[in-house]
């Protein structure tokens, strides 16, 4: 399958790489952005049929950067299996589909990850009544685990490293894992921490469930584009970076107009008051201003979609700025 995919990628690449994606997008008049078919907090249709979530905001940010209009985006739903062929064949201009950045995807499939918009990692969820506070106390537990995923391998590694045993209860989907855990057929459910949070939020009584502190794998999720079109890659990369930098500088959608007369040089550069960074990207000079004005900075998007005030209640953790104990870090805007 992988070989087949890379052949598609090469063939599709030959067809699509000749023209700049940025020009294609501009000529078309809207951005085509690949998202999930629905993942709580990341991309899901709201009651009005508008896509909302952290990944959906990423798509909108790029649309704003190119067109100055957050509605100039068409969301194409993709599944775990169809996402890569869809991007490779040029049906979407970019993917923001909580995709883990790995070497094989970056190199072998011919894609380019332009950054990380969410640092995820595999975690454990148990009933509070089980009385454990750390995953190392899970000796002999029955674990609900999705088969054929990297989580399965991570789990085996973790238990072997800690010299404890477990019994696996194989499941196919997140829903199935949820039902099994709630029905008590397994003691522990393990998947990515963001997935655990949505599972917990869906429980009849969320307080009865506990997400253990151990995170046993690295799952950096980020937007990606096709290999070889660096100009377009830059647009997507800096759309994400602009949101992170805005948080660093304390620029929000509320105060962005006032910040235009700020005395901090980097703020002025970011908002396009000074310099011609927009021109370098072949965008309008207020592209970053528009992103912050219409979407908000990274923190605003995070808090609105997955943060502690949402049902998902995911603390910033690794996704806090590097200055605040996380690892979120964007190169300087100069």
């Amino acid at each position, binding site marked *: 399958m992988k070989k087949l995919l890379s052949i598609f990628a090469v063939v599709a690449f030959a067809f699509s790489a000749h023209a700049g994606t940025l020009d294609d997008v501009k000529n078309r008049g809207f951005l085509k952005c690949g998202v999930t*078919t*629905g993942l709580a907090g990341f991309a899901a249709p709201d009651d009005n049929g508008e896509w909302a979530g952290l990944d959906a905001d990423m798509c909108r940010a790029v649309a704003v950067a190119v067109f100055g209009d957050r509605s100039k985006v068409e969301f194409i739903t993709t599944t775990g299996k169809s996402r890569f062929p869809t991007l490779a064949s040029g049906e979407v201009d970019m993917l923001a589909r909580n995709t883990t950045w790995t070497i094989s995807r970056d190199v072998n499939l011919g894609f380019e990850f332009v950054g990380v918009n969410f640092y995820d990692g595999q975690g454990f969820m148990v009933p509070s009544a089980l009385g454990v506070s750390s995953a190392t106390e899970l000796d002999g537990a029955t674990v609900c685990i999705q088969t054929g995923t990297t989580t399965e391998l991570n789990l085996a590694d973790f238990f072997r490293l800690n010299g404890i045993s477990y019994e696996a209860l194989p499941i196919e989907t997140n829903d199935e894992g949820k039902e099994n855990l709630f029905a008590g057929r397994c003691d522990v459910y393990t998947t990515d921490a963001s997935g655990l949070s949505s599972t917990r939020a869906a429980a009849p009584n969320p307080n009865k469930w506990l997400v253990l502190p151990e995170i046993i794998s690295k799952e950096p999720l980020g937007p990606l584009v096709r290999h070889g079109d660096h100009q377009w890659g830059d647009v997507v990369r800096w759309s994400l970076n602009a949101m992170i930098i805005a948080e660093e500088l304390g620029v929000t959608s509320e105060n962005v107009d006032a910040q235009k007369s700020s005395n901090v040089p980097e703020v002025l550069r970011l908002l396009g008051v000074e310099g011609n960074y927009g021109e370098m990207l072949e965008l309008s000079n207020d592209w970053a201003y528009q992103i912050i004005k219409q979407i908000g900075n990274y923190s605003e998007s995070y808090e609105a979609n997955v943060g502690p005030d949402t049902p998902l209640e995911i603390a910033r953790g690794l996704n806090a700025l590097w200055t605040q104990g996380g690892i979120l870090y964007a190169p300087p805007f100069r």
Partner: protein
Amino acid sequence: MNEMNEVRKPPVATTGIIGWLRINLFFNWTNSLITLFVIYCLYQFIPWILDWTIFSADFKYNYLGEQITNQEMCSRNLDPENGGACWAVIYVRFYQFIYGFYPKVEVWRVNVAYVMLAFALLPLLYAKLPYRKYFLYFTYIFPVIAYFLLNGGLGFAEVSTNKWGGLLVTLVLGCTGIALAFPIGIMLALGRRSKLPVISMMCTLFIEFIRGVPLITLLFFGMVMLPLFLPEGIDMDGLVRVLVAVTLFQSAYMAEVIRGGLQAIPPGQYEAAKSLGMSYWRMNLLIILPQAIRISIPPIVNTSIGLFKDTTLVIIVGILDLLGIGRGTLADTNWLGLSYEIYFFVSLVFFIFTFGMSRYSLYLEKKLKTGINMGAD
């Protein structure tokens, strides 16, 4: 003499309600035991399901009288003792379930198409319809009208198929698949039985290839590989690609079903038609196919129902049909955890359509008296 003329009534035990009960439910002791067991199960189940789906359920407001806008406001989440199903999610998302992401200002077009679909089906379903001939003309041009109505063109604003979803996609896939597969299937079935080796081999090869491959594979083929075969610059719509895959799949199955019907026609019918000097096509159209299709009605409806349900597989290529919209709703943080309600609703909609199809096939069988005519009673 009088006694002889008196009409004697049948024993009480074999007529009326009591008789029916005795014969059908309490014929012997195993029968009675099973009946009692089933009654007990229904007694346990029916009050519970009625309570959950209707009496304790929230429809728009919760038990405090507030309008429900997210799952936390559902009665059963506020107070587990005090609530059943939370149908508010269906109420709030009804538009999406029926139309997907179709723009609200243009949605009248979908409504018109739904109504027209009903009118187009009417002459097919009900043979005694007055002016049936004119209605049939409408049925033939309906696909063209529907195309322009739904997709745009001829003065209508274009609505990309990417915005279609929910029941709309399910019906478009189901109806197009079934309607196109029928004629293609007939041609394939005739082709496979043809005496010309090239035609028969090609048809056999096609049917066996398609039948030997799961629908998911065909969907992926349509989604991923089809664009690579097309010349550059021609952008084939995602939904069309899926339609191609679904139609190919369904026509292979339809061909085999109809071939089964063809096999059952006695050779005498062919010989009689030929002796009247009929050509191949006249023989098939006037003598063979009407009989073959008539006896194939149950399996034809069977595969059609199968296809209608299989359309849910399109979620794996990223098209949100009725079930896909349901799953998308479950991923909205406002409605997390309402899977019972959503899956219940989706299955109910599917049940209504498939049950309708199966009842219609029963009606057709009765009307055409398939069994008696073919001597297969």
